[in-house]
């Protein structure tokens, strides 16, 4: 089974040289720590920045330099800054190659719910609806089950949706799965030490297991 860092490490293997990538808040943010050496990946922050650098050294924080999670950051040689309309323009126009975000639920047809629990939590969707509506390459990073032990990979989402038919791949502490265009979660890899039965038990939606399922390397 993977911890959060492990999920981030596995997702980092999906990166390719030259990719422009948008990382959501939470586990996706950790992916930035595992960009392979020698690979050029430019991170997009939807408030209006290409080229997010590491956190500043203590004492060097600049209130005018933050990421979409409102954290103080630095910029890198080659970074560019722009307004929020242009930021979502490049997202809508599919210039961003890969979007990695968290979710509360994903359905077997690729719907995602991530922004609201009616009556309990009202935070808003931020940029998530824009990202999932336009991105062609969306990976969800999340836990396989919620805190109550219920599966987050469902036949149909129960929470208000963020977007429909959009999630392509899911990486959890148990597995890597693809959402098939015809519906269903196709099991690609098992996390170290995790059995197919464990994954079956944690997946409420249609799970497709064909042939040998390799253990992932992280």
């Amino acid at each position, binding site marked *: 089974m993977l911890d959060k860092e492990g999920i981030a490490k596995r997702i980092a293997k999906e990166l390719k040289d030259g990719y422009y990538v948008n990382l959501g808040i939470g586990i996706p943010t950790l992916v930035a720590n595992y960009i392979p050496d020698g690979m050029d990946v430019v991170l997009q*922050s*939807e*408030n*209006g*920045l290409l080229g997010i650098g*590491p*956190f*500043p*050294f*203590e*004492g*060097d*924080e*600049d*209130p*005018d*330099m*933050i*990421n979409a*999670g*409102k*954290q*103080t*950051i630095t*910029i890198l040689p080659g970074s560019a*800054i*722009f*307004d*929020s*309309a242009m*930021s*979502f*323009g490049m*997202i*809508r126009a599919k210039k961003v190659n890969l979007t990695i975000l968290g979710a509360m639920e994903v359905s077997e047809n690729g*719907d995602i719910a991530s922004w609201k629990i009616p009556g309990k939590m*009202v*935070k*808003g*969707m*931020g*940029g*998530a*609806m*824009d990202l999932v*509506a*336009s991105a062609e390459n969306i990976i969800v990073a999340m836990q396989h089950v919620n805190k109550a032990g219920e599966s987050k990979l469902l036949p149909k989402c129960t929470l*208000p*949706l*963020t*977007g*429909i*038919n959009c999630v392509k791949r899911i990486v959890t502490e148990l597995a890597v799965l693809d959402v098939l265009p015809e519906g269903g979660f196709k099991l690609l890899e098992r996390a170290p030490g995790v059995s197919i039965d464990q994954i079956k038990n944690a997946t409420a939606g249609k799970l497709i297991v064909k042939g040998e399922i390799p253990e992932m390397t992280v």
Partner: protein
Amino acid sequence: MNKVVSNADEAVRDIQDGMTLMLGGFGLCGLPENSIAALVRKGVKNLTCISNNAGVDDFGIGLMLKQRQVKKMISSYVGENAEFERQLLSGELEVELIPQGTLATRCMAAGYGMPAIFTPAGIGTEVADGKEVRNCNGKDYLLEMAFEAGFAIVKAWKGDTMGNLVYRYTARNFNPVMAMAGKITIAEVEELVQPGELDPDHIHTPSIYVHRIFQGKDYEKRIEQRTVRKK
């Protein structure tokens, strides 16, 4: 032409109860701090505020929420403000949550003189309820209307007395598109300079969009999430 006003109180002098305001900033970054303080002092009520976030409990638009000056917020993310959540869940505050890109682009449309935009954000979700859907090249898009705001209030780093503006780093965020969208645009700047001192090639907001400008003071520039690494 005289766009320069002496301070925030003079800049917001004719903002009245019930008006719709755009307020620049992302989180607490690039916020028109001086103007918000002046609106709190003025005590105008029943405002509709278009702003990506709602500040925190004791800073930014949170200060106006605390004084019950806001009737309705139009935002994309409001997770940082407990007082906001309380007023929302108790029904005291009306809230319209919209996707961040839709928010930015509805401002942009207003500034570019276009009545509406088509965007895929929100298709198949409750954001699409009651809105016109148009299929273009096999994909569905929502019709979203340009914003109409009596005033846009923005914060820039430098501005000249004609109203040209330059922003600093990610404090740019929503400020340029809101500056273009207000019927009357108020800009507060950290440094007010004479025409000619800003390189015309580096101006982010041309003066035509700005009606009032003043040099703010005592900027707090609060940091919401201080994240650092060890030396």
